[in-house]
């Protein structure tokens, strides 16, 4: 493969075919996304059955309605607060725990790691009723803090495992020499480990943020006032049982997805290394 000049005809054909395949596949993949744009920029009445990606009557009325006739910015603020708080708390909890699980051998370590793993198998519906009771007992119904609490804990197990895997790949020699130089464990954690673990931290942050930004069912259960909705709950109500406002939904979907997709692409370069570093040691 190194010497490109000697490429045979057969290899060239394969290369072109692969290009074509990927191109078609990619078009197929992003088609639904583009379709949303069509719906969002089209008129509610102009919905018609067609494969074309251009709306028949281009208009901004959906965005206008959503942004200025609905408390969109309140919902946005709610979502941002919840997602940001979840990310900060989740990262802090997961990083410390992940570091301890990666570096220290203490009694209960295996049990702890396993318990984090097993929680992934809990069906969410089973937790809803008890969680509702707990949130109610804490007086946090209709309160963003309740959502933050729940989201940050639900994202912990996955984040701990991921960070633990990444910390495992950071050589121990660094810390050992720092210890000899008289640095404290805490200093090492903040000054050496965390900067080195940036990719994994970025990915963890992304996932925590996504958990909070995208979660629908619990938000719908715990938030009952229209002004305390997060974006998913609000958007879902446009195409719920009693409404079919696809235009508003599509406009909202675009507005909601833009920040998270942007974040995703920004952190993309970390995604591969952050996700797989722990599991691939070969």
């Amino acid at each position: 493969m190194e010497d490109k000049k000697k490429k045979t005809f057969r290899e060239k054909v394969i290369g072109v075919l692969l290009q074509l395949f990927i191109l078609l596949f990619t078009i197929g993949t992003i088609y639904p996304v583009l379709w949303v744009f069509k719906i969002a920029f089209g008129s509610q009445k102009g919905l018609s059955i067609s494969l074309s990606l251009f709306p028949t009557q281009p208009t901004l009325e959906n965005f206008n309605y959503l942004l200025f006739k609905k408390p969109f910015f309140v919902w946005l603020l709610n979502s941002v607060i919840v997602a940001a708080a979840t990310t900060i708390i989740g990262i802090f909890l997961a990083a410390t725990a992940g570091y301890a699980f990666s570096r220290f051998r203490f009694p209960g370590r295996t049990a702890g790691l396993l318990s984090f793993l097993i929680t992934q198998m809990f069906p969410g519906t089973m937790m809803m009723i008890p969680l509702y009771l707990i949130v109610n007992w804490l007086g946090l119904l209709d309160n963003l803090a309740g959502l933050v609490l729940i989201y940050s804990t639900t994202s912990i197990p996955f984040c701990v495992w991921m960070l633990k895997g990444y910390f495992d790949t950071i050589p121990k020699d660094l810390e050992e020499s720092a210890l000899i130089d008289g640095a404290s464990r805490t200093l090492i954690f903040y000054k050496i480990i965390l900067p080195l673990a940036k990719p994994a931290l970025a990915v963890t942050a992304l996932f925590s943020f996504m958990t909070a930004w995208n979660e629908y069912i619990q938000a719908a259960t715990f938030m009952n006032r229209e002004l305390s909705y997060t974006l998913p709950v609000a958007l879902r109500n446009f195409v719920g049982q009693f409404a079919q406002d696809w235009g508003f939904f599509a406009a909202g979907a675009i507005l909601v997805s833009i920040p998270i997709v942007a974040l995703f692409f920004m952190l993309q370069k970390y995604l591969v290394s952050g996700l797989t570093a722990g599991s691939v040691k070969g």
Partner: protein
Amino acid sequence: MEGTRKNITAPLALLVALCTVLAGFLVLDRAFKLDRQQDVSLARAHLWLRPLALAVEADPAAPEKVAALAGAVRRADPRIGGLQVLTGTSFLYHSDPRKLGRDLNPDDAADKTIYDDGIEIRYLLKSSRRKPYLLDLDRTAGALTLSEPALLGTRKSVGTLRIEYGLEKTRSAMDVRILLVLLASLLAFFFLQKKLYRWRWPLAGFFLLLSLAAGSLLMLANDRDNLRLAREAKLSHLASVGGVLAGQAPDLLPAFAADLKGGLFSDLLGEWKTARLLAPGQEAPGADRVTLGAAGAIALDADDAARLESERQDARKLKVILTVFALLAGLLLFFVMAGFALRTARALAKFHYSYIMIFPAMVGLITLIMLPFVYGLSMGFFRVPPSQGGKWVFVGLQNFVEILSDFHPLTPGNFYFVLMVTVMWTVINVFLHVCIGLVLAIILNRSDFSFKGVYRALLILPWAMPNYITALIWKGMFHKQFGAINAFIKLLGFEPISFFNNFWTAFFANVATNTWLGFPFMMVICLGALQSIPADLYEAAQIDGAGKWQQFKKITVPLLKPALFPAIILGTVWTFNMFNIIYLVSNGEPNRSTDILITQAYRFAFEKFNWGFAAAYSILIFLILLTYSVFTNRVTRATEGVFD
């Protein structure tokens, strides 16, 4: 030295625990015995008073007759410490000869108490709820004092009768059988722990539980014996009362027999519902029979209600035993834990840094995941019947039995049908995710491929999108009137399809959505793993003459495994519980047939409000996933090395 010390801690702990158990049983046993004996003494005292009361009732103005009968009663039973019959303000009978036939002396404290008792009983008679007698139990003096009224009609008191009656002495002999059981388990443990040293603590716990169980059974058996003995004692006592009555006032016998069925005093006797006088030689099959010499016999028919009550009391006792049992088990746990805590404390001191670091995450995990989980788990054993006003009723395994025994795998909504759909859903999805992800990753990993970065970015897009939006977009794509899929179908010359009116098309819509959503994750995982495979491995293989397929089989696949297997396990678990897609795309349509287990559980909880069923469903989901994960983990060794 170390070895011998080790050998002794477990037996010692068990010994201590067993001694505690023994003490507990002794205390309980004695309490039960006292209870029964008090019961018997009370019945006896009552049985002595009734004929006297009947005599007063029959003829309040015939003091001689009452006094004669009372005197006979007094002589018949040495346990009677004092006996008074008071009508108005004068004693018809008083066991103290000096007061016999006299009026009350208001300055005498004893006289005053019986007078006060009479007033209080009159007051009690007015309330239909309360029993018209006064009982004063003095355990230390070993006597009880019982005051009863003589009645005119049903609720009018014409006199007060009062008896002081000595309680039976209780033998507090240790039950040898319990002692033997405890001893045997101690010895058995002692010998077994040598062979199973590693398991000595669970073993000790097992033996403790075993002896607790055996002891409890013995206790219950003892209590049954107590009950039988009490019954016999009452019967024999009834015979002697009847004897006295037959001798002194045979005319009262029919009234006495009729009165035995209880009435106002039913709880004093309690075991029989109807009593009737039998002529000599008359038989009464199926009833208890008390012979009264020449006067005939009294037949007593068992009171079913009272027997139920006594059974209920047995159940209550069992509850007490079980509580004690649990307390003791807790105590044992405490002893075992004390050792454990000591170790933990040492570990805490030694590894405090680690524990501080995981503490916040653990607290969150326990309070907001584990606790709700356990709560949810326990809900599966309860049910809220609509008729009972929202009260939880414990139904044991009934929810599970109902779900699992209803085997109709072809009926939508049935557990087995939903399970099949769920498994099919999971297998198809994970298979597609992995295949598509792997193929894309291999292509994008080719060194000669152009626009790699652009493609990768665009192909990750579905993952970046919030999945509820994805789900709703696809719901729109499958829309009959304006959906793009139907536009495509129309383009091919077919009629538009209502996707959610048919199981397979609705299922297909779900799968298409979830495949679109899920392949980027697998692609990223595969890309990462592929990139970490050193290129020289392929070069070396090429030099050795291996073809592309062989390279893929011998290098790529084995080296992908460590990254791919955990991702597959995780992906399976996620897909199995993929609530959003099913709920938002097909929403179970048509006719709830495309529901998977998790959405079905959700519907039980929040649409039918059958929380017990929902919890049982969730438990089944959890068990299925746990079994799957443990099994695949064993086979693939996916987490091998993760815990070192």
